[in-house]
Every structure is written in C-alpha cells, then in structure tokens.
C-alpha cells in the first residue's frame, strides 16, 4: 500500500470515528490510543526495521512526561517548549547511552535497556523534592485551548486532546513512513537482515542502530509529554517497567514490521482492557490468552496477517 493511501486511511479514521462516539469519554480513550501509538511507531522503527530490542523505552516516555511537568514548574518554561526540550533531552540521552548499549545484542541488549528504564523510574521516584516522588505531580495547562477560546472557538478538553494527539500521530506516522522508504530505512532493514552483509555493502551498522534508537526515543518522549499534558497529572508509572513492556507488546502484536501495524497494536491493547472490564476478574486472563493466540498463529503480527489474508481472498 502506498504511503499516501496509508496516511489517508489513518486520517479518515481519526476524523470519522468521533461520529460513532456515544459519549465524551470515548474521546479520552481515542487520545490515549493515539498517544500510545506514537510511542509504538517509534518502537516499530527500532524493533521492526533495525531489529533491535528495547525494554526500557518507558524511560524516555518518563523523561518526556516529567519535562512537561518540571519545565513550567521549576524553569518557567512554556509547556510546549518543555515538550520540545524533553524530546531533545531524550534524544541526547539515547545518543549517549545508545553508543555503548547497542554493541550488545539480543538478550543482553534487552537487559541493558531494561536497566536504563528502571534507572529513570527510580530517579523520578526518589527525587521527591523535585518530582513529588511516587505521588506524582500536577502538570501545567498547555494554554492552547484558552487561546482558541479567546478566538471564539470553544472546544471541550476531551475533543481538544483527541484532535491534538490525532494530528501529532498523523505527523509521526508520516515521518516514519518516509523513513521506511528512504535510504536510511533500507539501511536499517538491511542490518536487521544481516549485519555482515550490511557492512560489506558499506552500511555503518553501529551508526544506523544508534539512529533508530534516538528516533524511537524521541517518539516515546513526545508520547510521554502528550500524556502528561492531557492528564494534567503525572506519576512515575509512565516511566515504569510495565509501561515499557506494554509498548513492546503493542509493537509486536500489531506487527513490528509495519507502521500501520504499530497503530493497530496500540489501538487494540489500549481499547481491549476497557472492553474487558465487563469480564471483571477475568480481564487479565483473556488479555493474556489473546496475546498468546496471536503470537502463535500470527507471528508477524495482526495487521500483516490480516492484509495478507485480504490479498489472498482478493485474488
């Protein structure tokens, strides 16, 4: 499917879905899906294209989230600038730790990134004076809504954040799709296939792994910032181990190899728990079972599986 078609479908879905929303609550879920999808797109670049694992990307989400909380509070920085500062900080952090960490492979890389994520969460938890510790802290208002109101456009919080996260998601998907088809994306996919061969054709393997790591860190950071800004409150959970695992699971479930698969995986794993609350005590059980079944029968992920099925019946 062409890049523009994929983007058009995504944009159409984001624009049309609210027509089906029975209540304002659904805007919040939608915004949550988009925010998660943004981080997962980043991971799809790292995992799906460059073939490197990270179990610590919530650490970058944490950096992004707390940048938006701390920037206005301690530095008097505007929340929007804090988001950018957080993204830059995440990128630089990824650059610094990525260089030594990405020499590792497979399990070792997983454990090293895991360590990084836990480190960030611990710093946030323990620097009580700065971050409020485990209780979390309030986040300043972005201020864009007030601006819109002054211009005579009243828009509810849910709708506003649905729109903002949706637009950022489309932007993120557009960038990711461009990377996928660029020489950079091809180089990443090549080193995923064979590092030795990638080097013999002239690809600097270490630098492309690092690029993928930094790009995905920035995605996670922006995702964390948006989460903080729309919730107006943030706790260390955003940087926690469970959030890292959640992000990787979404990536793999949706189909790590494709950008739209990432969005799909994020949507399913964000919405499903909401639906399954009806099952009360069995929620986690059903969720786990679904994931096991998908991984056994559709190891490439949901979206690639579905699109292959459709193509086959289409013939």
């Amino acid at each position, binding site marked *: 499917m062409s890049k523009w078609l994929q983007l058009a479908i995504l944009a159409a879905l984001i624009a049309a879905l609210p027509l089906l929303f029975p209540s304002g609550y659904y805007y919040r879920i939608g915004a949550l899906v988009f925010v998660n999808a943004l981080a997962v797109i980043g991971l799809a670049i790292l995992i799906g294209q460059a073939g490197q694992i990270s179990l610590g990307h919530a650490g970058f989400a944490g950096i992004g989230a707390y940048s938006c909380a701390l920037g206005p509070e301690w530095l008097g920085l505007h929340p929007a600038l804090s988001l950018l500062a957080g993204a830059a900080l995440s990128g630089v952090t990824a650059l610094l730790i990525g260089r030594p960490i990405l020499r590792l492979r497979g399990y070792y890389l997983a454990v090293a990134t895991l360590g990084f994520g836990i480190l960030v969460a611990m710093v946030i938890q323990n620097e009580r004076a700065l971050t409020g510790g485990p209780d979390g802290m309030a986040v300043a208002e972005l201020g864009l809504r007030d601006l819109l109101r002054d211009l005579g456009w009243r828009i509810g919080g849910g709708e506003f954040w649905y729109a903002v996260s949706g637009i950022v998601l489309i932007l993120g998907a557009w960038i990711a799709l461009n990377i996928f088809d660029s*020489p950079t994306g*091809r*180089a990443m*996919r*090549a080193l*995923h*296939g*064979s590092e*030795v*061969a*990638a*080097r*013999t*054709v*002239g*690809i*600097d*393997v270490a630098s492309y792994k690092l690029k993928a790591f930094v790009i995905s860190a920035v995605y996670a950071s922006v995702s964390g910032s948006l989460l903080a800004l729309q919730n107006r409150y943030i706790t260390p959970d955003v940087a926690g181990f469970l959030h890292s695992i959640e992000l990787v699971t979404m990536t793999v479930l949706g189909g790590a*190899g494709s950008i739209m698969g990432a969005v799909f995986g994020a949507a399913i794993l964000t919405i499903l728990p909401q639906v399954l609350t009806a099952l009360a005590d069995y929620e986690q059980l059903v969720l786990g079972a679904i994931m096991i079944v998908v991984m056994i029968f559709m190891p490439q992920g949901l979206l690639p599986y579905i699109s292959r099925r459709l193509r086959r019946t289409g013939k």
Partner: protein
Amino acid sequence: MLTVEGLKSCYGRIEVLHGVDLEVAEGEIVTVVGANGAGKTTLLRCLSGIQPVSGGRVIFRGAPLTAAAHGRAALGLTQSPEGRQIFTNLSVEENLRLGAYSRSSRGVRSDMAESYAMFPILEEKRHLPAGGLSGGQQQMLAIARALMARPSCLLLDEPSMGLAPLLTKQIFDTLKTLRDRGMTILLVEQNARAALGLADRAYVMETGQVIISGMARNLLTDPRIRDAYLGT
C-alpha cells in the same frame, strides 16, 4: 591491485592466520583453496574489515587499507560474504539498490539493468522478498549485489557452497565473463577443481598459512594437490 603482507589474525587468544602473503594483480582471478578451517574465510574477513587484523598489512591500489569495514566498499573493495547473506526480508530489487549504497546513485538504474541482463531470473522476481529465492538464485543475487558497488576488486567467499554442479558451473561461467570485462577477483573456494580450472593463479592454505602457490593450471596437475584436494 591488492597485496597482503604477513597478515596475522586471532580469535581471542588463538592465532588463526600466521602471516599470510598474497598478491592479486589487476584483471586476474586469484583463488585461495584449502580444507575447512584452513583460514580462507578468516583471510577474506580480514580483507573486508569484519575480522580484526593483529599483524601484517594489506595494500589496496597503492595505499595501506585501514578503513573501517563499511568504508571499504566505497574504496572499490567489495565482498560477497560466505553463506550469501542476502537481505532476506527485502525485495530482490532493494537488495541490488543496497549494493550501490556506498556510491552515488547515478547510474544505479543502468547497473541494475545490467545485473538483470546477467541473471534474467532476478528480474522476474525483482519485487519478491529475496528470502524466497532458491540457493542458486540467492548466490546470483549476492554476486549481483556486490557488483552494484562497481568494485575494482571483488572478494568472493565460497560461491559454490550448497549448489548443484550445474549451478556452480553457471556461477563460475559468470565469473569468467566478469574477468573478460576486466574485473579483478579474489575467489575463496572449497571446490578446488572448479576454482583451479577457472583461476589464473592460486594459493593453497593449510592451518593458517599459504603452503603452495603458483599458476592455477600447474597446480591442477601438482601431485601434492591432486592427492590432498582433488581426490584423484
């Protein structure tokens, strides 16, 4: 074109190349034959920069070769690695495009057309994932991909590995055509008979050293080689 002087290399503390000397002149096919574990592949890995060198030096086109592995393709030294190592998850055409990664994109299209002319089956399958190709087709792709870099010297590691005799012959015929067009080739092979039949000069390696070298034609009839490597 390529001179190797006293090349040594270690895996951990164990030295596996004990000072290899070798020379490849422009426009010739030189082959390195030898049994499993003789150090042939290690030698090639040193030349392409994937394996660290612990002693000696390599001179390529008049200058010592010190560039990192990924910088050597741009210098004109391209390896088609052992076990083909094509990018299985990418399409045939993307593989070829990546072969030209280290040079300017001008002329990529016409070079690709040339690859397809050389291996028509690749053109037929150009949009399919390379992982779906047969062993022989993958080998063709590996060679075609290496040529996309427009190398002045091509390093080939066991192109006959796992191929039926007919396919091996086809691959070797291609190498002959390449030489006729002026390509310089260093060919590492276990299939000594085929390699010696094709090459201009040859080196025989054993336990990390060159033990015999000479004109390939003469080595074919050398009794030491006939007994040890040709099995006749």
